[in-house]
């Protein structure tokens, strides 16, 4: 007899997500993913100045802050056919790259590690053995027995205080927790260390963007930080070098700690490799443009259907009709008026609030579709699309990570291990490492260009009478993001955001095709329906952001 469980709130994510699953015979047999909060930004934007839109939509999300801002200015520039200077392009790339480092580190350590790491079990660990374990994996200097002992003492003090705070009432001792105490202690130590390194990334981002979350250095037509190497109030070498320094430090943590921890978790939880595949259609955008006109990119885009890597189709640029013409959103099962499926430029947002109804409308998310199909987006999609196209950086990164897992697990693990819950985590770590390299590369490109005497940062927009349509495509930490704008006489007529988490967390459509979260939960094991830790594992592997998804 199937048992129905509702998990609401799903925690350690951004936003208000409710997951319902049917469990039968210790495994999930059906699932519903439901966004529980609506704000109406697409409505609020109507009639406003398109130059202001990026400030509004950036508030869609403070976790992936920057990405909506970037997509929005791109959308308006696309509508106006307004080119931006090369410096602006490269500075935006630094924003994208650095923010990504912070976002991926925080996701793995702060938002998902506790699904796999048992904090309480760390109390049984021997700090010296922990050091031996850590040193066998990496020569990171932070892995000393002294530090591990201090972390252990800290955990002990916390537990003994009786005030567990955010660690109260969790899944400690759950039968699905498999790491030995030493691995747990190492992970808790890295959890704390990650907090320092994510902050370094945000400091670097702050230098470029004025503040974050919610950067303030963009504008339609370019960026706002004037470049003048001979002025203290502008972007100059002192600021640029501080950025580089911080990125290098963070890169060290990513390569020596994050990637290694991920490989260790992957190897020690090898029995989880088959779970969480779900939708195996993948979609990713090209990004990190190398030139002002955005014709060449450092991150590849494309689609893979039905897990067929050989059949990969490239998305060549940010306004490739192959992408632009094939996107639609369905509201058949969303809390909106009607049951249509429309292209974003024709789409609208008319809320029709109602209660969760598993057989009818049950979520505030729309359901995006590509050529009518649900698609999975995110680091995994991007790594697969790049891998399938033979992208050098990605192939090396993925193979390196798989070798590391194979080494720790003691058996050969191939790229098929990437599909699924753990694969999504691994792909994210590989992408994070790649982005650290690319950030440094684009830093070099920027400094070279400034050195050549080019100080341009801005081309002023002008808004002609009549109607213009644009799309701003961007590869966000959680996957492909697109903003669609229709401008009429200099004012916004329609604005639609189709967001990574909308693709992944969206509900069913009129054809009853499950969204990626829903599909990925099918067949997940559930040891104890009262404490459905396994559901959290798979859901967290997508890095949910529901404020993004609904907006």
């Amino acid at each position, binding site marked *: 007899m199937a048992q129905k469980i509702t998990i609401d709130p799903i925690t350690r994510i951004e936003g208000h997500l409710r997951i319902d699953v049917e469990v039968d015979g210790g495994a999930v047999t059906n699932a519903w993913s439901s966004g529980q909060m609506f704000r109406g930004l697409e409505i609020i934007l109507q009639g406003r100045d398109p130059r202001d839109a990026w400030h509004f939509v950036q508030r869609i999300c403070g976790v992936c802050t920057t990405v909506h801002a970037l997509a929005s200015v791109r959308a308006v520039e696309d509508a106006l056919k307004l080119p931006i200077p090369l410096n602006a392009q490269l500075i935006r790339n630094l924003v994208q790259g650095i923010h990504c480092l912070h976002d991926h580190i925080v996701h793995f350590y702060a938002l998902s590690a506790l699904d796999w790491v048992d904090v309480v079990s760390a109390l049984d660990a021997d700090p010296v053995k922990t050091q031996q374990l850590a040193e066998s994996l990496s020569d990171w200097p932070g892995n000393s027995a002294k530090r591990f002992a201090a972390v252990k003492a800290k955990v002990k003090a916390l537990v003994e205080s009786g005030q567990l*705070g955010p660690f109260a009432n969790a899944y400690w001792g759950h039968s699905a927790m498999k790491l030995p105490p030493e691995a747990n202690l190492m992970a808790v130590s890295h959890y704390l260390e990650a907090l320092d390194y994510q902050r370094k990334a945000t400091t670097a981002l702050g230098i470029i963007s004025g503040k974050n979350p919610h950067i303030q250095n963009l504008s339609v037509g370019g960026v706002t930080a*004037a470049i003048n190497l001979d002025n203290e109030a502008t972007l100059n070498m002192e600021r640029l070098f501080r950025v580089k320094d911080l990125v290098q430090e963070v890169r060290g943590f990513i390569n020596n700690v994050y990637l290694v921890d991920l490989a260790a978790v992957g190897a020690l939880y090898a029995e989880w490799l088959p779970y969480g595949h779900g939708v195996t259609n993948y979609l990713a955008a090209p990004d990190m443009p190398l030139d002002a006109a955005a014709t060449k990119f450092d991150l590849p885009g494309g689609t893979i259907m039905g897990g067929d890597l050989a059949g990969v189709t490239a998305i060549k640029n940010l306004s490739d009709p192959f992408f632009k013409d094939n996107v639609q959103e369905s509201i058949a099962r969303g809390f909106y008026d009607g049951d249509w499926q429309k292209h974003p430029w024709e789409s609208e947002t008319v809320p029709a609030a109602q209660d969760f109804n598993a057989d009818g409308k049950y979520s505030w998310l729309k359901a995006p579709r590509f050529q009518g199909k649900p698609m999975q987006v995110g680091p995994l999609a991007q790594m697969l699309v790049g891998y399938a196209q033979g992208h050098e950086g990605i192939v090396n990164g993925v193979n390196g990570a798989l070798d590391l897992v194979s080494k720790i697990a003691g058996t050969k693990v191939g790229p098929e291990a990437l599909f699924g819950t753990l694969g999504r985590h691994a792909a994210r770590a590989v992408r994070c490492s790649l982005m650290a390299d690319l950030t440094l590369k684009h830093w070099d490109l920027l400094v070279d260009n400034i050195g050549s005497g080019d100080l341009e940062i801005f081309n002023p927009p002008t808004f002609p009478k009549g109607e213009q349509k644009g799309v701003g495509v961007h590869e966000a930490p959680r996957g492909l993001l697109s903003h669609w704008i229709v401008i009429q006489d200099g004012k916004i007529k329609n604005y639609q955001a189709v967001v990574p988490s909308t693709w992944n967390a969206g509900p069913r459509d009129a054809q009853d095709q499950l969204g990626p979260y829903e599909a990925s939960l099918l067949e997940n094991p559930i040891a104890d329906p009262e404490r459905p830790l396994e559901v959290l594992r798979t859901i967290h592997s997508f890095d949910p952001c529901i404020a993004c998804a609904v907006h």
Partner: protein
Amino acid sequence: MADTVNKTLDPHVNRRGFLKGCTMAAAALGLSESMVPKMVEAATSAQRPPVIWLHFQECTGCTETLLRGAHPDIAQLILDIISLDYHETIMAAAGYQAEQALHDSMEKNAGKYILVVEGGIPTALNGVYCKISGKTAMEMLEEVSSKAAAVIAYGTCATFGGVQAAKPNPTGAVGVDQLVHDKPIINISGCPPNPVNFLGTVLHYLTFQRLPAVDSLKRPKFAYGRRIHDHCERRAHFDEGRFVEQFGDEYHKLGYCLFKVGCKGPETFANCPVARFNEAGVWPVSVGHGCIGCTEPDFWDTMTPFYDRIPNVKIPGAGIVADADKIGTKVLGVTAAAVGIHAAVGIGKRLIKGKSDSDVG
């Protein structure tokens, strides 16, 4: 290397770093050095004060600021200073286990916990636009605030409704003080706010068992007492009439004042130019972009378009969209025309009828 050892672990570094945090907070609060030991003591007492943090219509940007705070940093904050009993973005438990954690803390600490709210509260259609474990944000706020000692509304969403309350406010979003009337409330506005202002408020409360002095919008004076403009490093350029005319121009490269490209510093109250952000000594103006007024009520409507000086803004209310100066100039033109016609009619009449009796001068 020292950096890679988290401050919260090393008793020496910990104490030094923490003292520094308290000293900074004391300075920000305008307190004397002698208060520092008292703050340290208050903040490190055996029982950490319980904090419950609720998320409503928000983007989590406010929570994200805590990850960027360094004095104290997030680990110190939640392991050493407060007991963060409920916080959906950070807590390990989910679903029933999370609800239970909330319930337990509310019962055990009734009347003693600080409630922090992040996000606006939708009130249209009885609040169906935001639900957590089946309850609306309105219900949850009422329930959890009823047993709180004090409420901190963190961020412009929680203080004034925020971005979702921008016209036409489709969900009827409001700030906390529109709904909670029987508890002390402190508003820490900003989108997001500077975490220094949150930490300063919390440390003040822990030290003195009362909230800091506030302005008439319930914002702590130590952080929102003066205009951005009054402490801006570009202020001399403003006074001297040296302005950036367009991003990227010669004046922009010289660091001139951003007033003409829309800076709202002159009407925005916050300590951004003093406290700065991200441990990087920066704030929006230092990257050449005007302040958009994010600490002020309704700034999404009153400060837009962000790249123009008012009054090139919408006529408030009733959805009439027009530029005030354009209307003004037109009305003046119509007036001039009317005056001209009026005078012409008078002259015409005089030409036809001759001087009338009363015209005798």
